[in-house]
């Protein structure tokens, strides 16, 4: 058998396998509806109660508010401090037991360190544990000089360009701290694998990385992230990142600064906070006749239905719904005409940039613009404006669970600057920022774990975090909150982590702040949004 024939056989088989990979993404995969995760914020509360958060208070566990809070948090005043310690005033972080490190007998870093005085500055972070003396290979993926992390993201697939932001942000953060010497003298490495937005590939990639081994996963981002959850659970590997699928966010190994699952579940009913609606009422923007549009893909449709329930429970009436829009539809003019004739004054969609653009263009064509039209925060990107056309996109809104990317908040600026420096050409995005925050949380845990970090040690640190706002940039988060935990276990059923947002609106060629005037708006109540089974729980 000649070599050329052997080469050909291999090329064929290889081409086939790769072609198959490409083909298997061919059936019109669509943007994930950041359903449970996105824009719902956090919070697990006893049903019907709300927690108030006001500046400076420690929203400790257990406090029950009973009224809708209209508090506005102004965390944006955090002054940058370079030395170890000071945090910006007015940030409602809860320094509960976070100051103590629950490590397993290794030399602790400065025990006075807590999230309240932990710095975001890479040089300072490196200085907390400046040398490698006493470093051991204390865990899989850990050597005296490095720690390897894994990342499985949907870099190619139906939604190209969407999910790279996670690893880009984490990589930039790693680069920043490595340039300053690393943590306890260890350089942080990130191994990235592409799951092509396919769940089986995701599972295989996760398994491969676990076997590598990696210490933990950092910044994985994909709409197929439900694939590898079982592998991570079986191996008990921590997964630090932003979950898109519910079952990942419900996993006991999942840790996110943005909090656990966006939904609270009790007695088989799911609850979600209606912060956005409360804000709209406060600022006089509450739409009384709402329309909801989604793709005919269940992840999109169920997210839209959840919002519909929230609006209804908040007092709006539903004037039109279409949960079966096809990805390939030529125009949404029919929907717009119906919304127009039904006199809707608000529209919310859970489609992607392309779908929203069709809607915006149809609105422009019909010259009909309701006072409120918005979508989920993955559309917070310049592409939404250019895709729809600037004139069509004016007034389009979206809610962010963190400060906008043009904010002067120091962490936001750090994200922008490190991304520009270490990942030139990559676009900042909300996803990216969320994972950047997660990286900072990871750094805190590593610093606290000192010279012999283990998976358990960083998990213990995550466990101890309550109501952390990442230097005022995000809605307060408690990573350990996730239902359904049986009563009596730690953490408790209900926490008081508030849900906070900022609303952005397109003006000119960019998104500008709509409400609140500064910082984030926190408030709203936990409302029932249907059986938990609707959300995969």
């Amino acid at each position, binding site marked *: 058998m000649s070599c050329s024939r052997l080469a050909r056989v291999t090329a064929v088989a290889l081409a*086939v396998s790769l072609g198959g990979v490409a083909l298997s993404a*061919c*059936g019109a995969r669509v943007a994930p509806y950041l359903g449970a995760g996105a824009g719902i914020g956090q919070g697990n509360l006893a049903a019907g109660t709300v927690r108030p958060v006001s500046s400076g208070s420690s929203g400790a566990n257990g406090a029950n508010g009973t009224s809708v809070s209209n508090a506005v948090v102004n965390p944006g005043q955090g002054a940058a401090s370079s030395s170890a310690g000071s945090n910006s005033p007015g940030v409602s972080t809860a320094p509960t037991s976070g100051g103590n490190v629950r490590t397993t007998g290794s030399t602790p870093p400065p025990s006075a360190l807590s999230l309240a005085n932990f710095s975001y500055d890479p040089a300072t972070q490196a200085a907390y544990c400046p040398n490698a003396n006493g470093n051991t290979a204390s865990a899989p993926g850990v050597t005296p000089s490095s720690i390897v992390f894994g990342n499985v993201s949907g870099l190619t697939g139906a939604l190209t*360009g969407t999910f790279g932001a996670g690893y880009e942000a984490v990589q930039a953060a790693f680069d920043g701290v490595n340039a300053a010497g690393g943590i306890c003298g260890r350089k942080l490495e990130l191994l990235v694998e592409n799951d092509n937005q396919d769940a089986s590939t995701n599972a*295989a990639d996760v398994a491969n990385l676990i076997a590598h081994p990696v210490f933990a996963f950092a910044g994985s981002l994909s709409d197929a992230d439900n694939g590898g959850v*079982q592998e991570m659970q079986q191996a008990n590997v921590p997964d630090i990142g932003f979950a898109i699928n519910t079952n990942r966010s419900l996993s006991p190994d999942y840790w996110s600064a943005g909090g656990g699952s966006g939904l609270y579940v009790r007695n088989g009913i799911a609850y979600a906070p209606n912060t956005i609606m409360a804000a709209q009422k406060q600022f006089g923007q509450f739409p009384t006749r709402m329309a909801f549009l989604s793709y005919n893909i269940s992840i999109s449709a*169920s997210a839209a239905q959840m919002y519909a329930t929230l609006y209804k429970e908040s007092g709006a009436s539903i004037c039109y719904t279409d949960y079966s829009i096809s990805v390939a539809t030529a125009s949404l003019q029919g*929907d717009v005409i119906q919304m127009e004739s039904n006199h809707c004054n608000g529209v919310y969609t859970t489609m992607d940039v392309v779908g929203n653009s069709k809607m915006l263009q149809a609105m422009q064509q019909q010259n009909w613009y309701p006072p409120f039209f918005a979508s989920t925060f993955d559309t917070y990107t310049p592409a939404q404006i250019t895709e729809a056309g600037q004139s069509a996109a004016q007034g389009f809104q979206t809610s962010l669970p963190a400060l906008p990317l043009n904010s002067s908040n120091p962490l936001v600026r750090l994200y922008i600057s490190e991304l520009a420096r270490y990942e030139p050409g990559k676009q900042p995005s909300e996803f990216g920022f969320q994972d950047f925050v997660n990286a900072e949380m990871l750094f805190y845990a590593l610093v606290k774990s000192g010279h012999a970090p283990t998976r358990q040690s960083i998990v213990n640190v995550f466990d101890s975090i309550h109501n952390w706002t990442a230097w005022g940039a995000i809605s307060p988060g408690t990573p350990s909150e996730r239902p359904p935990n049986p009563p009596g276990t730690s953490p408790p059923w209900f926490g008081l982590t508030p849900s906070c947002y900022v609303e952005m609106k397109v003006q000119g060629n960019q998104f500008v702040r709509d409400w609140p005037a500064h910082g984030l708006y926190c408030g709203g109540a936990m409302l029932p949004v249907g059986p938990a089974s609707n959300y995969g729980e």
Partner: protein
Amino acid sequence: MSSLWPFFVIGLFSGSVYALASMGIVLTYRTSGVFNFAYGAVAMFCAFTYWQFRDGWHLPEWISLLLVLLVVAPVVGFVSDRLYRPLVGVSTEVQIVVSLGILAFFEAGVPLAFGGRTRAIQSIFPISTFGVGSILRVSWAQLATFLLTAILALGLYVLLRHTRFGMASRAVIDNRDLAGLLGVNATAVGRTSWVISSVFAGLVGILLSPSQGLQVYVLVTVVIYAFAPAVLGRLVSLPLAYAGGMGLGVLQSVLQRWGASGTVADIEAAFPYLALFVLLVVYGKRLTEVRSGVKPVIGASVMSPLLMSRQKLLTSGGLVALGLFALPVLLRGPDLGDVTAGLIYAAIALTLVVLVGWAGQISLAQFSFVGIGAFMAGHFAGAHGSNFLWAALLAAAIAVPVGLLVGLPSLRLSGLYLALATMAFALLMDNLVFPRTDVSGGYTGMSVPRPRIFGISFASTTSFYELCVVLLVLFGVAALAVQRSAVGRRLKMMRDSPLAASTFGVNLTTTKLVVFALAGAAAAFAGAFDGAWHLTVSPSNYTFAQSLELLLLVVLGGRSLVAGALLAGFTYTTQLLPIPTEIEKFIPITIALGVVSVAAVPEGSVALTVKQFWAALDNFRRLPGSPMPAALALDARGANGAQLERGANGAQLQRGANGAQLQHGAQQHQGANSAGSDGRDGAAVYPAAALSGRGGESPLGGVAGGVAGSVAGDGSPVEELVATTRGGGGGGDA
């Protein structure tokens, strides 16, 4: 909202979109004889290049248009022509595979070449609007698209009906050789046909991208929706394709007025697939495929006429099985898990080999059955998998009536149309059945436990692996038993000539239905194991795209039992391995290579290669008879002199070509072996002598086979030989 007419008007515009796409499909089929699954991808590629010229490099609009329509699209057309020419009317499965390969090439290549971001692309027509009635506003771009579509429909109709080119292209498709004899330059016509349909695809892409969005997958989806209108025209009538597209748009738009949610909405969304399925079944035998005047080529790669002796089979099979069982000694953990996935996939591939390779029924819905198995296992296997076997058997039982349903179209359809009908079925499952939470757990999926059989848990990687080896061995043994049995022969009778089979007592209806049902049941049984491997399954694991991929692999394996299944399993395992980002750049190139090799060797490049490998080995066997110079032996067979003189009978020529080509392959060798001591060679070339006396095969056939094997192995053997017999008119273009 009382008035319906705005939706009617909107429907006209969205209908234009479908009409453009469906006309493109019909145009391609009418003029080139190929049903181009990759049509949408070509359109998409042209749209991207248009964007690059106009918005990326800021060339003037007209120049960008001309560049795309007069340069880029024709180039794509030329390449398509070269790829498809040997396949027209010959093998539907291979055609499907090639067009899918092209689709995959574009889908993988465009993001790499153009980067990942979505782009906006402005319409070439103004988007300002004017009012129609009290509420509707129509944009000039919409109106222009509508008018342009109508004009194009008319133009194409005239082109196909009333021009020489139209006539000539019909002639070429109907009977290429005859057309050649009548002075039609088939090659030129074929090329022109492809250029025209590519240019049309480019036009479709440029016209539709502004409203659809410039994305990799959208146009492909639109084109799949447009299959139904194209079939309405039986793939040959442009006016009907146009009408069908318009009708589909109007119907969908009007339906939307009535119900944007609930059952009506589900039906509206699935309507194009439903329509496709119904149309195909209703039209039935009135749908004719393009057939070349020749019977399909039988290459050296086809299953060896002499199945391996039982002894040999047992030993080699036993060795393979033993090797598989022992593998955990070498591999652990996730790697072993990957191989497990490959084993299950190979078992599933076996079921498709039986259906497609032996019974000749193309099915693009096999993975739907696998999905049934996985979800059934999730529902019924019990908390720790204690009822796993029962769940798997239940899944197989449920798959039987489903298989009968899928088999119904096969009673009235074959080849391409059967493929389309099964595709419609798979898409219906994907869109209507699987997403239901009570079936599959919805998008969040459901968990499937590992099996616990007779109290033994097979949850660990190694134990589950061994269980899957058993599964594959069982399936393999069953398949091999069928292959050698009367049942196997019956299936192959039906495949090779349904007409003759029925005259020899085969009840085609029963046989087809039974084979669909059993293949489906087997796939469902394996599906339970597939679900257990994944541990969490969701509808996205069992889509139509996966059925396509399976067909692709089976066809590449030459539809042969062993090669097909093993290739499938091996490839599936390989693709689970992570791809380093640097290598990803080369994916499109390897796909392209693969596609080219498939097109060049339609019999199945892998199987062919394997067969030629064995044939080449036979060069080193001892010869029983007296030697004759190999060159002479080659000439006597290869030149086909005697056959040619028989006259212009088209079929005759091809038969000669078949015969000669076949001599180059393993068959000759086999024949030589069995004929044994018969020393007379060259007799086979003179049929009269063969009829009267002993048609001896040269024992040197083996040598000739081996030597000639390397001649025939590169490039396209059929092409070469056809060229020599044709005297320069057609195929082997210089």
